[in-house]
């Protein structure tokens, strides 16, 4: 087991290195770099080339590419995610202010999506080929096909039309200071993200449940007189969840992507909106740092999922 984990960690380090290189190459291939923009803004009369040169020097963009790369990597290794060109603050400081909102939203979306996906998947499989199965499957297929922002718009329309929840848009209270108000504010993004995130899981869980319910041990459990409900939950669901766990990594990256959109839509000052803003302002270091951090979280999640998988399913040999 230790060997397996060690190897996976090592592989992940390589993956993260490739991610970092891709991020670096991606952002440095951008033709209009920040220095040009900065020099162009407000200095119409002054010699442009000189202004660009000064701005580049100040931001360290005049060095050769490989040198910028080594500096970037060196900083990453020591845990430094760079400094914003715009605000001159370290990315960590910027992120620290925004992480709580993002984590709150992300956790709520993830929980909601599983709260939707698990019952729907189980009921749909248990009542296979009845009207309720058709309805739930239709719901799952639609959830996969509908963009998260459209789900959010439809929900906003319903909420606006009937004035549900009496949502007060002004002010963004945090979970710990005023949980009730925060819940109201988050209800549309959380439900929209949850429904979008649940689609794929629902379908996979249904097909896994159907597969598992054909197994001998289910027949044995029934034969010894177990109640249906207990069979479904104790035997079927437990075994059907394993493959669902493996795609949880995919679900999580889907939720992260949806969250960027939802934060931008609902003006939630979180990591996603920060990422988008830095990108449109060509403010590379915080953008690179944030992308790297998100990838690291997703990669680590995947690793944990794989380890949990190996631990939950004794048939899997870790070599």
């Amino acid at each position, binding site marked *: 087991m230790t060997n397996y984990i060690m190897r996976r960690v090592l592989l992940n380090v390589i993956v993260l290195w490739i991610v970092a290189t891709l991020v670096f190459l991606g952002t440095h291939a951008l033709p209009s770099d920040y220095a040009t923009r900065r020099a162009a803004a407000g200095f119409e009369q002054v010699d442009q080339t000189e202004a660009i040169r000064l701005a580049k020097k100040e931001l360290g963009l005049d060095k050769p590419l490989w040198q910028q790369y080594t500096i970037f990597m060196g900083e990453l290794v020591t845990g430094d995610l760079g400094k914003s060109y715009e605000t001159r603050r370290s990315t960590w400081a910027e992120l620290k202010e925004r992480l709580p909102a993002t984590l709150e939203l992300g956790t709520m979306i993830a929980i909601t999506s599983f709260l939707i996906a698990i019952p729907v998947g189980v009921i749909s499989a248990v009542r296979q080929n009845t009207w309720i199965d058709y309805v739930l499957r239709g719901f799952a297929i639609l959830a996969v096909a509908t963009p998260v922002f459209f789900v959010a718009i439809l929900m906003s329309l319903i909420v606006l039309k009937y004035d549900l929840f009496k949502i007060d848009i002004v002010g963004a209270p945090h979970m710990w200071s005023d949980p009730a108000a925060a819940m109201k504010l988050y209800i549309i993004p959380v439900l929209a993200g949850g429904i979008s995130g649940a689609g794929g899981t629902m379908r996979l869980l249904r097909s896994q449940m159907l597969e598992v319910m054909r197994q001998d041990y289910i027949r044995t459990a029934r034969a010894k007189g177990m109640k249906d409900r207990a069979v479904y939950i104790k035997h079927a669901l437990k075994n059907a969840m394993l493959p669902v766990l493996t795609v949880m990594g995919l679900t999580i990256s889907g939720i992260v*992507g949806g969250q*960027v959109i939802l934060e931008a839509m609902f003006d939630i000052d979180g990591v996603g909106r920060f990422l988008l803003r830095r990108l449109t302002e060509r403010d590379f270091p915080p953008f690179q740092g944030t992308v790297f951090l998100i990838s690291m979280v997703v990669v680590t999640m995947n690793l944990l999922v794989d380890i949990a998988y190996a631990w939950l399913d004794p048939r899997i040999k870790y070599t």
Partner: protein
Amino acid sequence: MAQSQTTQAAAPAVYIPPVQNVWGKRLKHLGRVARRNKLGAFGMVIVIFILGMAILSPWVARYDDNEPFQTANPRYNPTANPLDIAQDPGISTPFILDRFEAPSWDHWFGTDQFGRDIYARIVVGSQLAVIIGIGASIIAVASGTAVGLISGYLGGWFDTIIQRIVDAIQAFPGLVLLLLLASLLDEPNIPLTVGALGFLGFATSVRIVRASVLSVSQMTYVEAARAYGSTDWRIMARHVFPNITASVLVVFSISIGAYILAEASLSFLGLGPGDKTTWGKMVNSGRNALELHPWESLFAGTFITLAVLGFNLAGDALRDELDPRLRGR
């Protein structure tokens, strides 16, 4: 049948096999598949509808997608002096834009905030959705097949490197990778968006193609080909590739919907192709007056969902027909 009898009557000495109605047979087969897989047939109908809309858009759009509609201002007073205008600004303009009109016979889906016909914009927007969905899929499949074939067949260090790169691409949350790629240029354009989406799909294609290649490479005919001295390239091209075409077709069809969805998200965030009319952009611009005039967002969002749904269902059906083992990937 009648045809075969006449041929036999003309030349009874030799048996000439009856001329078979190949297309009729194929249609019959298609009908059987459609009856078996009703959802897939439904998806196919949507796909044909969307494709038809995109191809025929110059003829069915009714109006230009950027043409602002306006009506003559009945209160327009050309001789008004500035003092009158200051008191009543409504008399200064000869025309008023038909903004935010509800669906009517003239404007089937209503008009947007600039008085443009939403139906025309939806029809023109379908072109971009189709071009991007299919274009990205072609790029992903072509690159993924080439790399997956070599990587799966040759194995060794090349395979290891490719697999780690694929891992790295998949470690990126899709949208974040798209943000990175789609903003490579100041002004995002269609080829770049297609390329970025194709790159995103590359990893998945490599995975699936490689898995098929691995199983095909174990076959006796591959071993036989190697035994009589075929080169690796020849084996890959003549023996392995023809036997993985089913997976390749599945990979092609299954993610078109996902690309359309991703492009809609990018456009919604304002990072899509700049000057074109896209559904994602329409949903976003409709948000400005959502509460009172929801038509633009509603129609554009519905069409995104419809297109993605159609391509997803058709892709799933094709996968179930061609390669049921890929289910759940």
